[in-house]
């Protein structure tokens, strides 16, 4: 989903310079999600489907309030519900709005082999460019949050764009606009982080959640979607949020360092063969036939 007004800072599988890099000042944006004040109304789910004009699909009922088990290529925003029983036997109803986290170091972009299929804007939004996507699904393997979803008909991968089309025009994402409780906020990364830290402190000091904290995992350079959680030590409780999200080394050390070096070494066989011919020469059938003048 292109957003022409946004500056690009990283392009998947791209050689050469990145157009627009550093030519304008751009604030990093961030979506703030306070799971402690989410009421699970799903207005954000509806707003997402609505704004992005996505075709409807059958929902799945599996004895929870959750719309379907996981996000889909045409359902980018899903509230995950978990009825959690605490150690003292009391019940806690956990709800987390699941969508693309817009990682600062995106595993999808690192894994992608197609030039320009995934871009990262200077404001931190990670966006798929379906016209350049080749449908290999490496991004699915690179993502620690199981976000990119493959459409078997179009053979392309789709995910939340953080409404890059709206943000490019100075609007907040559709989900933010629809939230009735104010648990969703949108602003600069610095501001949202400050709001989140203040809210977590409030939860710790005044609301009886001593483990409250902000989910902004440093293992992937932080994210442009951050959560305030009642218990930061157990993010897995919130619909499987990974405590320490990691990009497989295949797409970091192997792809960035080992693969290019190994390729150059491999291709070196060609000049070696050529100079073998120049220096040692061919193995002629013996004895070589000599041209005799007659």
């Amino acid at each position, binding site marked *: 989903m292109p957003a022409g007004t946004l500056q690009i800072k990283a392009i998947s599988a791209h050689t050469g310079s990145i157009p627009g890099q550093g030519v304008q000042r751009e604030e990093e944006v961030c979506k703030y999600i306070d799971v402690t004040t989410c009421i699970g109304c799903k207005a954000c789910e509806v707003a997402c489907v609505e704004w992005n004009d996505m075709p409807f699909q059958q929902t799945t009922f599996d004895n929870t309030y959750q719309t379907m088990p996981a996000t889909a290529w045409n359902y980018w925003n899903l509230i995950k519900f978990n009825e959690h029983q605490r150690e003292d036997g009391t019940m806690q109803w956990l709800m987390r709005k699941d969508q693309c986290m817009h990682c600062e170091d995106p595993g999808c972009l690192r894994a992608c*082999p197609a030039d320009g299929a995934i871009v990262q804007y200077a404001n931190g939004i990670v966006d798929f460019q379906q016209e350049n996507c080749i449908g290999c699904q490496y991004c699915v393997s690179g993502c620690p949050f199981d976000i990119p979803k493959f459409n078997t008909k179009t053979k392309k991968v789709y995910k939340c764009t953080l409404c890059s089309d709206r943000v490019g025009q100075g609007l907040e994402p559709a989900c933010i606009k629809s939230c009735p409780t104010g648990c969703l906020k949108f602003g600069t990364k610095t501001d949202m982080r400050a709001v989140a830290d203040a809210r977590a402190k409030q939860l710790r000091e005044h609301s009886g959640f001593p483990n409250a904290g902000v989910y902004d995992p440093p293992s992937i350079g932080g994210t442009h979607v951050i959560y305030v959680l009642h218990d930061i030590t157990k993010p897995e409780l919130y619909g499987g949020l990974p405590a320490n999200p990691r990009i497989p080394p295949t797409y970091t050390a192997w792809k960035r360092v080992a*693969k290019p070096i190994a390729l150059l070494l*491999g291709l070196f066989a060609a000049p070696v*063969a050529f100079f073998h011919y120049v220096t040692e020469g061919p193995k002629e059938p013996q004895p070589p036939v000599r041209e005799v003048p007659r």
Partner: protein
Amino acid sequence: MSTSAERFNEGARRRFIAQGRTDVRAGELLRHPVYTRVLHWGVAAFFILALLTGFAIYSPWFYRWLTPLFGGGPMTRLLHPWFSVAFVLIFALQFVNWLRPMSWTGDDSRWMRRLKNYVTNTERLEPEYVDFFNAGQKMYFWAIAATAVIFLVTGIPMWFPEIFGRIVVAISHVLHDIAALVMLVGFIVHLYEGTAAQPGTFHSMTRGTVEKRWAWTHHPAWYRHITGRDPRADYERAVQRQAERMRQDDAP
């Protein structure tokens, strides 16, 4: 020993020989019959197609250069597994066809110890024990067999990632890449050895025959089996004949 695969292979081999033609002229020996040649070029065609589509995706350095050859990125991605399946299937026939002459022997280990002499061309003739294939050719054959298995086993999860999950795909990636690199080097060496490095070799794979001189130079044990003659003695005789002819030409 006659497995069903071999019986099938034997039938296919006979049908191909009935179809094609190999002219063995004076001073030549039959090296590769029609069936072998068709298999070789079938494997070669799909190997090269798989190599080009694969390396287009392997590195951003090649992506913009190689994908247009196949109609763009999505088409390259679509075709690569099918080229590869064709490569593996035809190579399976080639594997059965060449299993016997390619089996490793003690002589091959001896040959590997004198690899330096082979590379630096210090000896005019190959050692007496070198049979239909030398140890270098056998290494390439077994490398293809091993990597074909790796390509298949790791390629299927990359083809159908939703079944296998992201970690299996990530591991498959690395193994697939390593196999591709081994094949890249092997292919470059094979291309050189089969053409410029050894005059006469390319003809054996196009029209099926080699000169007797070629046979006693590169594969003396094979020459002995097929002609019943001593390769070294025949070589000496050829040298003498040539020397005589030179003397006659030099005479006033």
